[in-house]
């Protein structure tokens, strides 16, 4: 690894002024489970590492029935998995956070880090997209908001400009009879990067679906909001037919590649399989709410 300096700001102001100074030469550190690997491989070469774990604003985990969830960017996966409110209100996002690697990884990694790493195969973006999450970005100049589906621009690149930090996610409170679900396919039972990942959030009124959002991961250069697939469910009864239509629409927008984790044909096939399964499960959960 090349040499760098290590900073551990204790306040958000400190962190923002640090980043304002170092700009592109600096990189945020939360769990370290992506960045250290990239630095060892020479893929990223920051001169300043800014450890954000001590900043209180990034560790917020709070739910308000009116305004919904505030999830700090540095909250660890293990904290999310163990939180009863998260399990109850956002089981899909909790699943996604809980699928990032082994126990060792989950004890360190964060949803914020997962998103900022910018991998199209990351586990949390499809769940965040399905929930309509908004990303709050701060810099010395102020804050701005970006939708989860717009955050990653291309593999490894996000909307973050030099001097900016992702500080929290805001997710609306689930309406009655709403729930979410995230599933991914991996060849082993743990540890792998998603070959395909699908997140879905649905709201039901009786048997009719009144709202739906489907997020896809690992099947394009960025995670995707499957608009047409989502719309294929809305205003209709949630049954095998509508779900099949949604799955087909999701397959249409997927542009997967063939690589060491799967072939193009296989991934397209799996978009259909997982969309069906995830929507069914989300609906099942929504019915019980």
């Amino acid at each position: 690894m090349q040499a760098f300096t290590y900073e551990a700001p204790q306040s958000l102001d400190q962190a923002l002024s640090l980043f304002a100074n170092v700009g592109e030469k600096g990189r945020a550190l939360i769990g370290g489970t992506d960045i250290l690997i990239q630095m060892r491989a020479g893929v990223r070469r920051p001169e300043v590492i800014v450890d954000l774990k001590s900043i209180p604003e990034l560790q917020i985990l709070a739910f308000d029935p009116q305004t919904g969830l505030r999830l700090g960017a540095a909250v660890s996966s293990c904290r999310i998995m163990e939180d009863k409110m998260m399990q109850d209100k956002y089981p899909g996002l909790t699943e996604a956070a809980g699928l990032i690697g082994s126990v060792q990884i989950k004890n360190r990694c964060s949803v914020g880090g997962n998103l900022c790493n910018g991998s199209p195969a990351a586990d949390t973006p499809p769940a965040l997209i399905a929930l309509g999450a908004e990303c709050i970005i701060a810099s010395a100049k102020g804050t701005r908001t970006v939708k989860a589906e717009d955050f990653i621009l291309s593999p490894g690149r996000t909307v973050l400009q030099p001097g900016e930090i992702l500080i929290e996610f805001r997710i609306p409170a689930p309406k009655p009879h709403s729930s979410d679900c995230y599933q991914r396919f991996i060849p082993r039972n743990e540890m792998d990067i998603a070959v395909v990942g699908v997140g879905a959030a649905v709201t039901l009124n009786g048997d009719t679906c009144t709202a739906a959002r489907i997020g896809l991961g690992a099947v394009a250069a960025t995670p995707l909001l499957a608009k047409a697939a989502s719309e294929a469910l809305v205003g209709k009864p949630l049954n095998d037919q509508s779900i099949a239509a949604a799955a087909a629409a999701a397959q249409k927008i997927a542009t997967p590649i063939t690589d060491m984790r799967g072939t193009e044909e296989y991934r397209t096939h799996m978009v259909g399989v997982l969309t069906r399964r995830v929507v069914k499960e989300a609906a099942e959960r929504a019915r019980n709410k």
Partner: protein
Amino acid sequence: MEVQEAKFKVIGTRPIRHDGVDKVTGRARYGADISLPGMLHAKVLRSPHAHARIKSIDTSAAQALPGVKAVITGNDLPDLAAGAQQMGEMVINPRYLSLNILAKDKALYNGHAIAAVAATSPHIAEEALNLIKVEYEVLPPVLHVNKAMAAGATILLSELRTSGEPEKSDQETNVATHVRFARGDLEAGFKAADAVVEHEFDTSMVHQGYIEPHNAVAQYNADGHSTVWVSTQGTFSVRELCAHILQMPVGNIKVVPAEIGGGFGGKTTVYLEPLALFLSKKTAKPVKMIMSRTEVLKATGPTSGSFIRCKIGAKKDGTITAAQIWMAYEAGAFPGSPVGAGCMTVFAPYALENLQIDGYDVVVNKPKTCAYRAPGATNAAFAAETVLDELAEKLSLDPLEFRRINGAKEGTAQPAGPQFRRIGFLETLEAAKNSEHYKSSLPKVAGKLVGRGVASGFWFNAGFQSSATVSINGDGTANVVTGSPDIGGSRASCAMIAAEVLGLKAEQVNPVVADTDSIGHTDVTGGSRVTFATGYAVYDAAQSAVKQLRERAATLWKVKPEDVVYQDGVVSCTTNGQESMSLKQLAGRLARAGGPVTGSAAVNPRGVGPAFATQIADVAVDPETGKVDILRFTAVQDVGKAVHPSYVEGQIHGGVSQGIGWALNEEYYYDENGIMRNSGFLDYRMPTCLDLPMIETVLIEVANPGHPIGIRGVGEVPIVPPPAAIANALYRALGVRLTELPMSPPKVVKALMEKK
């Protein structure tokens, strides 16, 4: 040699291993744990190209970096004569070996070593690598045996000529060797068959996957003597190979075996040791080298991917009438795939009149292969045991029964010629058939298709040379010194054998794994040979110690040694019933009785007992995703005599797990430029503990008549049947035969779709 069905007191029990406490407390010293004062750290620059001419290397900027003490390239190492040389039991090609550890004119695989840097910290050494400028002329890579063997293929080694053909050719080629075993009349055999099955198989290159990367710490002294600390399976091999490559006298190199974190055959050669030694000589400081995981995967020896065609015919009554197999194995960049062993093992479990086995050792632009647990046998068994399974189905025979009808036994001639002595293959089939697993019905799993498959396998095991000494301590305990690095619990087995002979408890014997200055020549830990051969040496050395103890007692009692017996740790006089002493008592009086007692032995035993395995796999498949779960797995094996049953079970568990990984998910994934894309444990997917069930083992003990305790090697054969057993189970679950390894989810789904 007669083997008594003796009542063993120590052999067959399960004592705590002697090195156990060190290993569970973190105190055990593996190669990477060793540090010396003033030590430098060295790193290796590796080729980014799969095939390229090296036009120039400029190391000046690297040499100028503060902290860098030496930079070397292939041109710094001695030029060695071409051609194969005998080194003990092995035939090696020192020039190819040297080129593999540091290239001279050509980079032959992505990861091939190009230069090495020694610096004051590993980080500085890494930075220095980035400053070395190499000019390459990139050449087309050859990445599959079929392409390598095709007319007009790009040639890797211009001097390579095929050996083994009846007529010598002077044609440039990528085929290093052709092996053939044939007997009988193949054509007549197939004509006589009522059913014939033929398939083609394609298997991917896979790695041994030991968790500990390669390491070496070397210290070259001004007097020309040097010491190398290394995690290796063969200290004497390291010594010999370093001596050859660096043109140093063998006796001047002392190799100290650090504890070793897994080898499975992959640590039987050298990569870093000669470089560390050379750099130590150049800098006059100790030098430490450790490989990263990427380097381990890209630049140490995996085992061959292969292309195989197998055709077998049989009559209605189940008798196999003809068996033919054509196999091309990847050697990697330099010759030396295990295709020969594949040829020797493939049809060995069966008594066959008409057979033809053709094996080809083919170079490709991938890392030079190295031994991996029963090298060559798993590829071949995947093909043959799949074809046999289909034949059994065509003939409406139970697959175990089909194997029993044709099963090899004492007197059966192996494909390579020699006749078997007493073996236990039929016993493994019987035990498998009678197992609770085989008799149970397949469980139902919601949403999944289930199936059960069986397969068998063979490994010849090895003898080779071992030395041992057994010394009696003043308190009646004993030390056993051998030169066999312990990769699976063998030092405990050696202690147990000595304890058995001496009438001691296992914990009263201290086993020591010694360096090359302290024990006689001992061949590698590998080939499932240690408990057999080193155990044999220990047995002989302990017997020698017993003889000396009888002589000492005779001196004390003033009788003849023939009048003294040694039984269960007690010496007694046959002519005078009053006289008897415990070993402990005698040990305290040795100085007056003639002197210390040390038994030693050096062996190269011939009575190797081969191993057979039969395995049963139950699988559940999600037909939508192609994901395969192993529901249940039973491994039956003839183990000769299980000295320490827990560690015999452990060898079976480990081999089966590697076989399951090989079957389902492990592969070297190359892009079209010959770059390995999955060179880490994230995407080189070995089974985690969540991917495996408990593995049931059935140990059958058919004593090896060639060994005083009946020992057979056990470590390798367990890896041979799993891919075929799983493929056969998948067939029953899905109705499709998978003929490519790994049988990963995309392949399963593709096969299912093509079936529709």
